[in-house]
């Protein structure tokens, strides 16, 4: 603080014409001032002490670089290119505030490039800057659908991530509220984990605002019937909302091509570290139709001509409809979000290009299938739906007589973080764990896992 220099504050007080600091707080009544004195830990005034405090504490963590981790389920260990880290860490971007097209043209262009590149992956023309998380993106998308259709029921797979589902439910409000949105689960085909089309048909009706499904889904399965689901929803007058993992889109069909109306997904796979869950963000996209655009809650960055012929600039489109512009009459709400990750995503996508997305998709898919196969070969261990997944898959340990917790404790002692324990999630899958394999897992890593599981389960 420049003004903490001796005398600097006094100089200002003199200019203002008051004798002490108390005078500038004159608006606060005397009996409002706090009585309890501040009782904070001692100041670490020097950077040296502060750094040591932070580093010594953080070193008590175990991380996924030292250990071999197979955790996913909403935040995944992917390779983050060093150039992404550099750009995101540039002080110009990292400490940027609000900006304007005049002063922060570069940042705005990077934002537009995020939406443009993601649009190319999705084959969709409108992409909003990311909201807080994928779950939040789904929540907003469902609320968009209810506004678009005037209906108040949403169908989604029973095999949903309880974490995202909890967020979705918060967006749909408790049933006591007048504006409540009903969340209705659709059954799964037990042989494939995919959405049951017959159950979907039985639940679709004139009261359904939207059908939501993920592709690949929470438990890793690929929804082959996506186009069919979208067709059925359309016939029922409902919006089709899809959740996709953008890192799959070099090998998986773009959701814009199978009839999705609103598309959501996580931003974290596009060049953001896991950050203990602090790397998440969620995107929302759609076709460029005014009825959709008018329902977005956040920042839509549009390219625009400038006063100089041939030159382009960037600014916020349809900004009056958000809560900054319309308070309680705005579309849901917005505020600080996760826009720095839009820049990470822009850099990441530009580094990969079409071929990079194809390669990384193939690599993840092939390695995940390899892992499922190796684990499946272990007596008592079963890969549920081993041939239907992308990067995640369910492993069942029932026949080993061990709980997932016991297996994971034993793995952890060997420097391996086993898959997420989903035994308690009520999916009826027994003692099961959700394993995640990405491009960072070499064949040797996967064999190390399989060998360890074998040893533990014998």
């Amino acid at each position, binding site marked *: 603080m420049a003004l903490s220099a001796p005398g600097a504050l006094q100089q200002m007080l003199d200019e203002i014409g008051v004798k002490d600091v108390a005078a500038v707080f004159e608006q606060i009544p005397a009996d409002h001032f706090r009585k309890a004195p501040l009782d904070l830990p001692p100041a670490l005034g020097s950077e040296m002490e502060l750094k040591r405090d932070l580093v010594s504490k953080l070193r008590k963590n175990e991380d996924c670089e030292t250990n071999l981790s197979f955790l996913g389920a909403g935040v995944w260990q992917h390779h983050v290119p060093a150039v992404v880290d550099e750009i995101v860490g540039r002080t110009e971007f990292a400490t940027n*505030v*609000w900006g304007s097209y005049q002063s922060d043209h570069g940042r705005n262009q990077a934002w537009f490039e995020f939406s443009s590149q993601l649009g190319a992956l999705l084959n969709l023309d409108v992409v909003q800057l990311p909201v807080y998380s994928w779950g939040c993106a789904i929540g907003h998308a469902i609320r968009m659908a209810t506004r678009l259709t005037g209906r108040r029921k949403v169908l989604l797979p029973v095999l949903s991530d309880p974490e995202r589902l909890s967020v979705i439910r918060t967006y749909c409000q408790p049933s006591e509220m007048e504006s409540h949105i009903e969340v209705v689960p659709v059954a799964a085909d037990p042989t494939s984990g995919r959405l049951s089309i017959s159950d979907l048909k039985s639940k679709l009706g004139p009261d359904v605002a939207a059908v939501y499904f993920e592709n690949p889904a929470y438990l890793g399965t690929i929804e082959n019937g996506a186009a069919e689901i979208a067709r059925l929803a359309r016939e029922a007058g409902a919006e089709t909302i899809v959740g996709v993992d953008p890192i799959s889109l070099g090998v998986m069909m773009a959701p814009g091509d199978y009839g999705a109306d609103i598309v959501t997904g996580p931003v974290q796979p596009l060049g953001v570290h896991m950050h203990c869950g602090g790397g998440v963000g969620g995107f929302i996209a759609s076709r460029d139709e005014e009825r959709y655009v008018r329902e977005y809650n956040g920042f839509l960055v549009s390219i625009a001509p400038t006063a100089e012929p041939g030159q382009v600039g960037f600014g916020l489109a349809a900004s009056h409809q958000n809560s900054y512009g319309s308070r309680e009459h705005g579309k849901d709400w917005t505020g600080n979000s996760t826009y720095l990750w839009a820049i990470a995503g822009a850099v990441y996508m530009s580094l990969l290009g079409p071929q990079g997305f194809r390669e990384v998709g193939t690599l993840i898919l092939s390695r995940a299938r390899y892992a499922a196969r190796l684990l499946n070969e272990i007596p008592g261990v079963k890969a549920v739906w081993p041939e239907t997944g992308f990067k995640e898959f369910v492993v069942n340990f029932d026949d080993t007589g061990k709980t997932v917790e016991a297996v994971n404790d034993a793995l952890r002692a060997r420097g391996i973080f086993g898959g*997420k324990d989903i035994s308690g999630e009520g999916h009826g899958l027994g003692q099961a764990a959700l394993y995640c394999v990405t491009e960072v897992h070499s064949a040797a890593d996967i064999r190390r896992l399989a060998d360890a599981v074998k040893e533990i389960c014998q």
Partner: protein
Amino acid sequence: WDEPVVMELGRPGARGQLFPAPEQEIEVAEIPAAMQRKDRPELPEITEFEAQRHYLHLSQMTLGMMGISLFGTCTMKYNSKTAEAATLRPELAEVHPYQHPDTLQGVLEIIHDFDGILQNLSGMDQFVFQAGGGADAAYTMAALARAYWADRGELGQRTEMVTSIQAHPCNPATAAAAGFTVINLPLEENGYPSIEALKAAIGPKTALLMINNPDDMGIYNPEIKEWVRLAKEAGALCFYDHANFNGVMSKLSARELGFDACMFMLHKTFGAPKGGGGPAVGAFGCSDELAPYLPAPVVVKQGDTYRLDNDRPKSLGKIREFWGNVPQVVKAYAWARAMGAEGIAMASDISVVANNYMDKKLGEIAGIEISNPHIRKRRMEMTRWSLGPLAQETGIGTADFANRMADYGIDPWWMSHEPWIVAEPFTPEAGELWSKQDIDQWIGVVARIVQEARETPELVKSAPHNQAIAQVDGSVFEDPKAWAMTWRAWQRKRAGDAKARSGSA
């Protein structure tokens, strides 16, 4: 730099990032035919060097915090590189939130300790960090109020949220999104709503009161204790939106004023960087009475071990996945530890003194006017001003002014949240970061543009002149035929334009 859009760069086959083929022993797998991608996504094909150079150019075309920015309502802070570097270490960046808590003791300890710091600053009993910003923390409050009233069986009756028309838009917006009816209290001459209006608004239908104080005009509502008393008398929950905490840190305690809950913006008051709009954190704190309704998990200490408490049956559910933007919490912890109690008190002193210095100097410029000029008391850490007189005299409004400021290497000012209560508003906030030289230079630019508005108004109207780009044609932003949120859309609409032009030619 005259930097093209990235989609225009490159050449077929250029690569910025390679991936190995699957190892020999791994069979190459394919997506089922029905779901296979057949087309090539239309992404740029550039080298790593070209991607780096392009985005470095864009970073250099971003003023950010490289100049002087007295951007009101956002509280400009120094964002410590020390804390930034610590959070980028693999010990935090490469950590998964589902790891066993035994492997997360370091980060849990920091969160727990920081919780204690915020408890002390606010008087609240428990904080959580799940909310992704101040607005999300307001939403947390609204969702918590639902859970609270549902638990009491009164949710059907308690349907209203009361706030001031000057409260940050996120309060009414999140309450409305949560299903509450919003009652906005108008401001009186003294700059805040009357007790009478409050009394008329509250009653058995009131679920909660959401209020910030001081407000963005820099006015402190001296009747706030009475407000809280009345609201609680009516059974309502009281939420203190502490967005403007910077000027009252160490001076006020939300709990002592009677509030049930409050929120702090860590990316603002607590020195975490803003990232151009997040990742951010709205730290939400409440009393023990409300704690059972908090979103899970809550970090707790059991003996010498830190744990994640997920067993919260009355919880409102989740506001977002996982525990929040953890690195930002660590940075805020670092800020609080670097400052200590004395530093925090001093920062608040400085920010209010500096703001009053700024007010004094701005007051010397003819053509601009402070909001509610009849209020003689010194403002808090920011002040709403009006360019009304100058606009009447010269036709130059606050948006024109903002356009011109960037030409002087200074961030355009923040005008005002909606609704604009004063004409042609602008809201500077001096804060504790800037030196007297910086503030003087900023005021010098304002004075100079005021002069330009009188002498060469066209120059101001057509600004910016020495920025990366000229004035943007704002008409496209509300025109569905012209807006283009992606390169795809732009190409399509430009092609349409070209066709239309050739058709009409």
